[in-house]
């Protein structure tokens, strides 16, 4: 029987990696990811998870050890955040380009300087183009479910790509929530044993990571791009299958109270739950507003997104990262670009908020939406606004 327990989300993620029968974990501690890897180390120490735990000396080595383990045919898991994700940066590209289906939980964190251990999406945006599948989760249950899905999706022979599961640092990683853990036997069926097609082994020598001269490099990159885009089908199938087996349903774009809404608020990550409260309040006041959340960040679900916002006149996007000197918030940039060729284009208004762990309350979201409507009608001198900033 599946059992429901109250558990810190970080620990729940480690338990999910255990349910998935992870073979190798290589990790380096960083707030707010620490509880995930501490719990994994403990599960291994207590004999509850039969895995090698490699306590590496840096995140660069964490991801590098994951490359080696995954290429040898081991199911491989790690977790990081903020500075750690940045230190991994060049290694992340190798994981996706060499088609190594590593799963990584990222407890999203702001970037130095000034040093901040608190959450935002600066780390995520810096690794946007690394070629990983990237999924955002909003609560503990979604985190557990999507870590399981991540293994199944990444290891699918049609995909073979690494997957990041993003959760907000502290706001999600450190809260205690009720989580339903699926039964081991069902998980075992849901995630077939890992069989990497060409593992490093003397029985069948392979050369992995040869260098690409100009005559071939572009083709390798095109193949990678086609593959990442095509993975959406497998992701959708996986979520559909998950829904059938475990009765919880996921989709690339999630809509909340969007019926008849001319104005849509758009968010990504666990702030979405607060945003829902704001939408409820505004609906009570008779405003026709709804909420759209991006769950699948890469590959970006263009079709589903356009469908979800097809009736909107105004979209108010809340970003949790800055693109210094650039256009608007990074999510907003993508949204605008996705809609540029549409016949009926909504106005897209950009806000940046919630940097470095600053909270956004339901009242805050209400204010953002109202200001967004105002900007969409009257225009603004600024490309975007930073909500609630002093000075």
């Amino acid at each position: 029987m599946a059992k429901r327990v109250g558990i810190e989300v970080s620990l729940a993620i480690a338990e999910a990696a255990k349910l998935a029968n992870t073979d190798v974990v290589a990790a380096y501690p960083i707030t707010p990811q620490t509880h995930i890897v501490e719990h994994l180390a403990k599960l291994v120490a207590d004999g509850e998870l039969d895995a090698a735990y490699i306590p590496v000396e840096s995140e660069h080595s964490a991801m590098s050890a994951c490359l080696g383990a995954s290429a040898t045919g081991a199911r491989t898991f790690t977790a990081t955040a903020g500075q750690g994700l940045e230190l991994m940066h060049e290694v992340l590209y190798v994981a996706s380009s060499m088609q190594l289906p590593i799963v990584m939980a990222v407890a999203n964190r702001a970037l130095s300087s000034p040093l901040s251990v608190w959450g935002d999406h600066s780390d995520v945006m810096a690794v946007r183009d690394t070629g990983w599948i990237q999924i955002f989760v909003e609560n503990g249950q979604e985190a557990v479910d999507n870590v399981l899905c991540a293994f199944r999706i990444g290891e699918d022979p049609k995909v073979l790509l690494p997957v990041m599961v993003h959760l907000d640092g502290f706001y999600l990683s450190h809260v205690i929530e009720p989580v339903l853990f699926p039964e081991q036997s069902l998980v075992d069926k849901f995630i077939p044993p890992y069989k990497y097609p060409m593992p490093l082994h003397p029985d069948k020598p392979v050369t992995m990571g040869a260098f690409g001269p100009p005559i071939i490099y572009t083709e390798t990159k095109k193949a990678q791009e086609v593959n990442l885009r095509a993975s959406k089908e497998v992701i959708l199938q996986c979520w559909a299958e998950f829904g059938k087996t475990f009765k919880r349903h996921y989709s690339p774009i999630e809509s909340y109270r969007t019926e008849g809404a001319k104005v849509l608020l758009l968010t990504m990550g666990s702030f979405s739950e607060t945003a829902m409260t704001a939408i409820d309040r505004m609906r009570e006041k008779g405003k026709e507003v709804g909420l759209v959340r991006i769950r699948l960040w890469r590959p970006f679900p263009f079709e589903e997104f356009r469908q979800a916002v097809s009736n909107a006149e105004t979209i108010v996007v809340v970003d949790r990262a800055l693109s210094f000197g650039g256009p608007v918030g990074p999510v907003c940039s993508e949204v605008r670009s996705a809609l540029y060729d549409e016949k009926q284009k909504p106005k897209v208004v950009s806000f940046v908020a919630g940097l470095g762990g600053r909270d956004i309350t339901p009242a805050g979201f209400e204010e953002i939406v109202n200001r967004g409507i105002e900007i969409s009608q009257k225009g603004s001198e600024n490309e975007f606004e930073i909500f609630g900033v002093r000075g």
Partner: protein
Amino acid sequence: MEKYAVYVPKLVTKKENFAPGHRACIGCGEALAVRLACKALGQNVIVANATGCMEIVSSQLPFTSWRVPWIHTLFENTAAVASGVESALKMLMKKGRIAQQDIAVVAMAGDGGTSDIGLQALSGAMERGHNFLYLCFDNEAYMNTGIQRSSATPFGASTTTSPAGKMSMGQFTWKKNMPAIAAAHNIPYVATACPSYPFDLLAKVEKGAKTPGPAYVHILSVCPTGWRCATDLSIKIGRLAVETGIFPLYEIENGRYKLSLDPPKLRPVTDYMKLQGRFRHLSEDLIAKIQKRVSAEYAEIKEKAVADKE
């Protein structure tokens, strides 16, 4: 070494797991060292290779010189990749997903990939005690990118980033002692080797691969392109490095030093240096300074070896 000298033709395999046809320069001591190492390692091996000359000359898509499983990912992370491979093998064998057998996990990198940018990853992997062999192919500079200095470049050598000039005598720092750094991790086996002494190299690589736990072999690899020497002098210059005491051949087994070769009398360093354009600019004073340091360092190692013998 003793064993090989007698039975060489019978004992050394003719099989080339580092296949000919690669793109190394003529007279490349590093390619020769890799070739010999592959003979010693045999078939049951997985190689993790750092970015550098050897990776570039051997792996241009869609070709490969590797007849053993081989992975290259980045420049500085090779020891970490190897530690992942090793941990995975152990776990997969434990779980019965692959057959139980001895597979040597071997990391290969240049001096730059080892003593500079990859030192942290190497230190971590040695400290964690992975069962792997690390081979450093030391050609005393970043050759792949065009002969820039590394911390393994010898004092006085002119490179493209430590050029000799009116205000510069070339590299002004002394070569970092990587074998001592490896040994300071208390790993069971550390050795130096040079392809000019092929049987010694074969024996050490084999021993390193068979050692349970981390092993480190530092291999001096003459690079005619970067050292500005004639391409037919690679072997000779390697020998001179040993005969002058500039690059002594030794092992450090469980902390105990043992000289593999102890010439009755060391040749003067000029015998070695005068064949190489990278030292051409050096004054007699500087050469005397180098001679003094080489003699002292050799005496130190010899002292350790004598003490450890007792």
